[in-house]
């Protein structure tokens, strides 16, 4: 259940990108307004709400519930995210969820010059007032994070993706993040992090690959899954237009193995790719396991008691 946190500089189009992204992904957008209007009233009276708007330090005061306002927001966010994905806009969410395996932490920035120009246009301010406005808002953002979480708001290590909107528009930025979020479902860092035995867990693209890996394991043969991609066709500008990643590599035998257990109409295409690979990378050992061979291999190991004669 991937979710996003978005931190932005004022004038970076971060708010607009977050709004459009929420629509594209059909996710709720949790903003400062949601917190102030819906979550803080649960524990803050009118005066406290006023003070919270004025001073970041007030978030560290104890509420009548016995916990700080900052902790209340943190608990509410964690509870919300545990039930459904969302886009969390600001609120120090990049720090609250810094270790969350399914969080995508985005920072949206722009150059001072571009931001100033946008503020001048949007708020109809002259240059000096626009610059002053940005200086104050940046300082407020920075102070909120440093006061409550003792972190530097601009620390790039807090973010997984940083978008510079000097060259990226609202639609483009939202589309980029939407694409990443959708694909993140299949390539999460959690899945790629080392397991307890120190090896990265493998995510096979097809069940037959997992079955074949089982056969190799049965014979105690070391293997690697898709360890290398061979470019096999380029356009006139030298861009790779076709590449081939064999399924398995057996280092001890310096052999790549490609399974073709899918629809047979793709087999001839794969054969051509393998031939091309052999021409371009002479000396590369690569063997194809065709559909029928693969199933007879499985059948052999499923029903045979003795391995001799056929192996």
């Amino acid at each position, binding site marked *: 259940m991937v979710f996003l946190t978005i931190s932005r500089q004022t004038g970076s189009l971060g708010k607009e990108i977050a709004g459009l992204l929420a629509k594209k992904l059909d996710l709720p957008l949790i903003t400062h307004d949601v917190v102030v209007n819906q979550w803080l009233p649960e524990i803050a009276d009118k005066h406290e709400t006023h003070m919270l708007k004025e001073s970041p330090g007030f978030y560290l005061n104890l509420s009548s519930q016995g916990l700080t306002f900052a902790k209340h927001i943190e608990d509410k966010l964690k509870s919300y995210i545990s039930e459904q994905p969302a886009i969390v806009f600001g609120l120090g969410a990049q720090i609250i969820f810094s270790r969350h395996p399914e969080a995508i932490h985005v920072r949206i920035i722009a150059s001072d010059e571009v931001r100033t120009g946008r503020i001048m246009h949007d708020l109809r301010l002259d240059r000096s007032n626009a610059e002053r406005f940005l200086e104050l808002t940046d300082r407020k953002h920075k102070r909120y994070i440093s006061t409550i979480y003792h972190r530097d708001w601009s620390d790039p290590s807090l973010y997984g993706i940083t978008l510079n909107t000097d060259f990226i528009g609202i639609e483009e930025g939202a589309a980029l993040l939407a694409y990443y979020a959708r694909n993140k479902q299949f390539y999460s860092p959690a899945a790629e992090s080392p397991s307890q035995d120190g090896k990265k867990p493998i995510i096979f693209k097809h069940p037959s690959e997992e*079955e074949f890996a*089982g*056969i*190799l*394991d*049965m*014979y*105690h*043969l070391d293997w690697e899954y898709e360890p290398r991609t061979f470019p096999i066709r380029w356009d006139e500008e030298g861009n790779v237009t076709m590449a081939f990643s064999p399924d398995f590599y*057996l280092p*001890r*035998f*310096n*052999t790549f*193995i490609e399974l073709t257990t899918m629809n047979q109409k793709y087999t001839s295409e794969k054969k051509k790719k393998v031939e091309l690979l052999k021409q371009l990378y002479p000396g590369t*050992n690569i*063997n194809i*396991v065709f559909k029928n*061979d693969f199933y007879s*291999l499985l059948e052999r*190991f*499923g029903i*045979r*008691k*003795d*391995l*001799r*004669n*056929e*192996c």
Partner: protein
Amino acid sequence: MNANAVGKIIFTAEEIQQKVAETGQIIDADYQGRELVVISVLKGSFYFLADLTRHLTIPLSIDFLSIKAFPDETNKTGVVKFVKDLDLSITGKHVLLVEDVVGTGLTLAYICQHLEAAKPASLKICSLLDNPSERLLTINIDYCCFLMPDQFVVGYGLDYQEKYRNLPYIAAYKREK
């Protein structure tokens, strides 16, 4: 068991003996001045081993290996293990592994890994039948008598459900479905 399932003779006893003798003479020439440990993988290659080694004049020792696949509850494909390991030490010695059939090469790779771990001076492979079109791994077969026909065969050590090993020839066999 259906005796009528034994079909056409693919390699006659005479053809086998002639080819085995030729292969033996080549091996004998290659290993002149050296001592050899010949290892047979049970059970399919024991007739082949017996005939082949009788054409060798070099000093040699003979040993046997046997492997088997065991079902494993934690792994649906099971696990392959040696049920009989070598009695002789092969460290620093020239080794000739005698196989009945080499197909995918998976079994051979498993055995070669095991033998290489003992650090022999050299390791070569001799197979009665070779099926290179079925090969998955890049393994060089140093000596080969025949290419495997495109059908299931029995005889001269090769079995179907432990029968027909004692046939002096290699014949096609129609397996029961």
